[in-house]
């Protein structure tokens, strides 16, 4: 199960917070919610907060890549916060560190 929470601190900036288990049985929900927001957001900045989500398999990395692609295609910016060690390791296992380098933001909330 995974729950999403949308908040818009400023008109230019939307935050999508996920809460729960992020794996291949819930990945399609994360994808759907995020892409929906991206379509609505247009070229603004999207922040995905995974502090309270636990990624346990590589399907979440794939979904993050897909979201990143879509955001970039729209000329927007993606920020990932609250990425835990395990997810970071999965990203480097998939040799995607470079792609995510300026996307992953260390905690500063």
């Amino acid at each position, binding site marked *: 199960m995974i729950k999403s929470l949308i908040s818009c601190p400023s008109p230019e900036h939307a935050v999508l917070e996920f809460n729960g288990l992020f794996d*291949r049985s819930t990945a399609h929900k994360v*994808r759907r919610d995020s892409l929906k927001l991206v379509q609505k957001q247009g070229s603004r900045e999207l922040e995905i907060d995974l502090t309270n989500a636990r990624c346990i398999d590589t*399907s979440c990395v*794939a*979904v993050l890549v*897909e979201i990143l692609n879509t955001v970039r295609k729209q000329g927007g910016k993606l920020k990932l916060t609250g990425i835990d060690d395990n997810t970071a*390791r999965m990203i480097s296992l*998939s040799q995607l560190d470079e792609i995510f380098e300026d996307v992953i933001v260390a905690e500063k909330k």
Partner: protein
Amino acid sequence: MPSADLIEVRGLKSFYRGRQVLFDVTFGIPSHQVTVIMGASGCGKTTLLRHLIGLKCTGQGQILVDGEDLGSFSEGLLKSYRRRIGVLFQGGALFNSMSLRENIAVPLKVHTKLADETIRIMTVMKLNMVGLSDFSEFMPSQLSGGMRKRAGLARALAMDPEILFVDEPSSGLDPITAAGLDRLLLDLRETLGMTVVVVTHELESAFKIADRIVMMDKGRVMALGAPDEVRRSTDERVLQFLNREADTHMINIDSYYESLLDKE
């Protein structure tokens, strides 16, 4: 054997049409570790692996998965066990009517509700792990044996299995690619906490990646334990295998003469 083992093999005997190929094989596979099953070719490694993945019925002996006997699993239980495992077969076993990308997408398409684009990204990621991301649209017949093996590994990894069984992953590979695969297996254990069971006859790679070694000889477990324990073994045949001495006793001289002379 401590009961912390994920899979326990107890007194397993195996037969092919009456000919015995495994004799009282007993060992354990610890979870989140790399277990290497090692031995000369023809000693029964693949047969043992087929027992572990439930493809060959256990006639005598037991295989316990989480303490439950694999042989007594109902169809449903066997299915849920198999959703936890990923298998690389000795021949790769790729579907030859599909491209590599489609091959790897098969389990994802059947078992998950992921979107096509997500599946595509995942397949490319898996192919990249085994160093084949440039070949996603190739058909298996257009690849070399070693590449097919690696693609098979990518497919085994598609579902991020809890337990990964690989049969001779580095056969037909150059040393550099083989070392890359060893690295990958260790990374998988680290990152995803996978339990990895590797069948191999390559000494070097075995000692590099193993947390536990099961050394087999002619259907029997010859040595068992951590790499250091195996290395310190004083058993003559173990030493012979470790030192790569040619096997002078390999041929049974009597039966050799017999088969030469005995022509009706």
